[in-house]
């Protein structure tokens, strides 16, 4: 009955009620669609780093005096059951001389690993007394396939020039020379500077880390284990913060909607002062009056929020396709979560806004209210 009364009262001032509901619709749509957009953006960005998530980088524990990882440690690590791929890397800084001179990073890699990791822009990746040069370095030293360079005085012929690479966390070949591990040992000596391990699944990351800790680091900390996952986690966290901030800005529109509900409800209570008096005279408790008015706010809130939540998918899809371009993440569980979140906030705002007018209505003196015309 209270619900019916509330519905009919809203119907009595249709335009006003609809306008107030539109406010809620806009507010909820803004919050939820921005949430959906942010989530899609995050997913699109993280997708680029997807391969990275199950990568682990092992480096010598410099704080404990280890500058390289020796062959025995590598063999122990290789025995770990979770490994999908393991790439031992040697690296050092060296003087590179051709027509010009510069200092640059030199990597010692297995030929197969190098072929898998990088793409040649020109030439073909092959070592055996030859070397591969990153794009930037090649440009700086004006190198082509077949050019001759000296690495710390030792002669190499350039077999390939690599494509320019985007940001990477493990090896950055753009400004580097890559040679075979045998050649590397001759110039710089034994040992590895880094081991890149890809585990079979993301759940194996922590298992693998434990394995290394117990098999290699059990006596002394020989190697440091760094999970790429932790970088992704940080990126995710940063996105979450940005998203929250954007949603807070969108929340302002919901606040405005709340004020308009407050306004509508206050007008309604003033116009219906006499009716409140009648209700109180025939036996309505204060709590009954409070309920009737709160129902009105609740209806506005639910009505506006449900429509807003539905619209937020449309709006979220629109913004995402405009800005990100990829829309496959729009219709996902997390989007539904944001829509639900917007829905919840819309209803919550409406209830809060309805509270004061409802309270005021319930506090009216029945005699004064009855006399009101």
């Amino acid at each position, binding site marked *: *009955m*209270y619900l*019916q*009364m509330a519905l*009919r*009262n809203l*119907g*009595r001032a249709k335009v006003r009620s609809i306008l107030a509901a539109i406010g809620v619709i806009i507010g909820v749509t803004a919050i939820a669609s921005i949430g959906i957009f942010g989530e899609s953006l995050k997913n699109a960005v993280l997708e680029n780093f997807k391969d990275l998530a199950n990568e682990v980088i092992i480096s010598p524990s410099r704080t404990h005096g280890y500058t390289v990882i020796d062959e025995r440690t590598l063999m122990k690590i290789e025995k770990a059951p979770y490994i999908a791929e393991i790439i031992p890397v040697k690296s050092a800084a060296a003087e590179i001389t051709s027509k010009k001179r510069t200092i640059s990073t030199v990597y010692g890699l297995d030929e197969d690993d190098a072929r898998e990791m990088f793409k040649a822009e020109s030439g073909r990746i092959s070592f055996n007394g030859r070397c591969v040069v990153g794009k930037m370095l090649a440009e700086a030293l004006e190198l082509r396939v077949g050019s001759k360079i000296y690495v710390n005085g030792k002669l190499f012929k350039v077999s390939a020039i690599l494509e320019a690479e985007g940001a990477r966390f493990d090896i950055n070949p753009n400004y580097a020379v890559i040679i075979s591990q045998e050649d590397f040992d001759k110039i710089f000596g034994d040992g590895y500077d880094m081991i890149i391990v890809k585990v079979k699944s993301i759940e194996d990351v922590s298992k693998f880390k434990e394995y290394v800790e117990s098999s290699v680091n059990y006596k002394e900390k020989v190697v440091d284990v760094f999970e790429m996952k932790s970088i992704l986690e940080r990126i995710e966290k940063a996105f979450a913060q940005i998203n929250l901030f954007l949603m807070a800005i969108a929340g302002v529109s919901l606040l405005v909607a709340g004020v308009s509900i407050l306004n509508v409800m206050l007008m309604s209570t003033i116009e219906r002062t*006499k*009716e409140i008096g*009648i*209700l*109180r*005279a*025939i*036996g*309505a*408790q*204060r709590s*009954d009056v409070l309920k009737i008015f709160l129902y009105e706010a609740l209806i506005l809130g639910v009505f506006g929020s449900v429509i807003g939540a539905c619209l937020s998918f449309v709006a979220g899809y629109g913004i995402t396709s405009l800005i990100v371009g990829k829309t496959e993440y729009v219709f996902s569980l997390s989007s539904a979560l944001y829509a639900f979140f917007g829905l919840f906030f819309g209803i919550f705002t409406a209830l809060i806004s309805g509270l004061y007018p409802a309270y005021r209505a319930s506090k009216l003196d*029945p*005699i004064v209210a*009855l006399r009101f015309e």
Partner: protein
Amino acid sequence: MKAVELRNVTKVYKTKYYEVVALRNVNLEVELGEFIAVMGPSGSGKSTLLNLVGCLDKPTKGEVIIKGKRTIDLSDRELTKLRRDEIGFIFQQYNLVPTLTVEENIELPMVFKGVSKEMRERRVKELAEKLGIYDLLERKPAELSGGQQQRVAIARALANKPSILLCDEPTGNLDSKSGEMVMEAIREMNEEGVTVILVTHDETLKRYAERIVKLRDGMIVDVSPDGS
């Protein structure tokens, strides 16, 4: 037990600048099942008396006792409960809720009391038949004549089977024929045992009352039996 007792009741309205004494040392007893008329010119304190008996207000001095309960001791919640269960109001302006149908208007006091839907429907039917408004149940108040609206208001006032019916100029807005029908309905209810307190300055309604209480300047100046 009396239906209503007023003992040395004084009611003073205070505003910032002046005081109005609306009732001065009023004593009155109304028996259960009695029909009394309270008469007097405007400003004589009729409305104040009605508000006090209707548990909408409390006296400044003295005590108002409704069916053995001193209103001065009761909280707002308890006063509301007393209004809901023991008192039925009939106003000059009918005061039906415009958004609700006739049926829903009559149901309303029972909704506040928490009566089940089934019981409410039975009671509405019973009252509607008695007051000759059965065909109007689905209509809205605005679609009814004044006399019809007032009969709906009577049905609403009686919904929770109150012991006291407070009528504030019930015929004030009606033509004489509708007014008579309304008064007949009220009399019928009185004959079924409901105590009726009728506030009016219409001399022609005197004949319905067993007793007439005359008020002037907040004081009872005369109590006389009917027909005098």
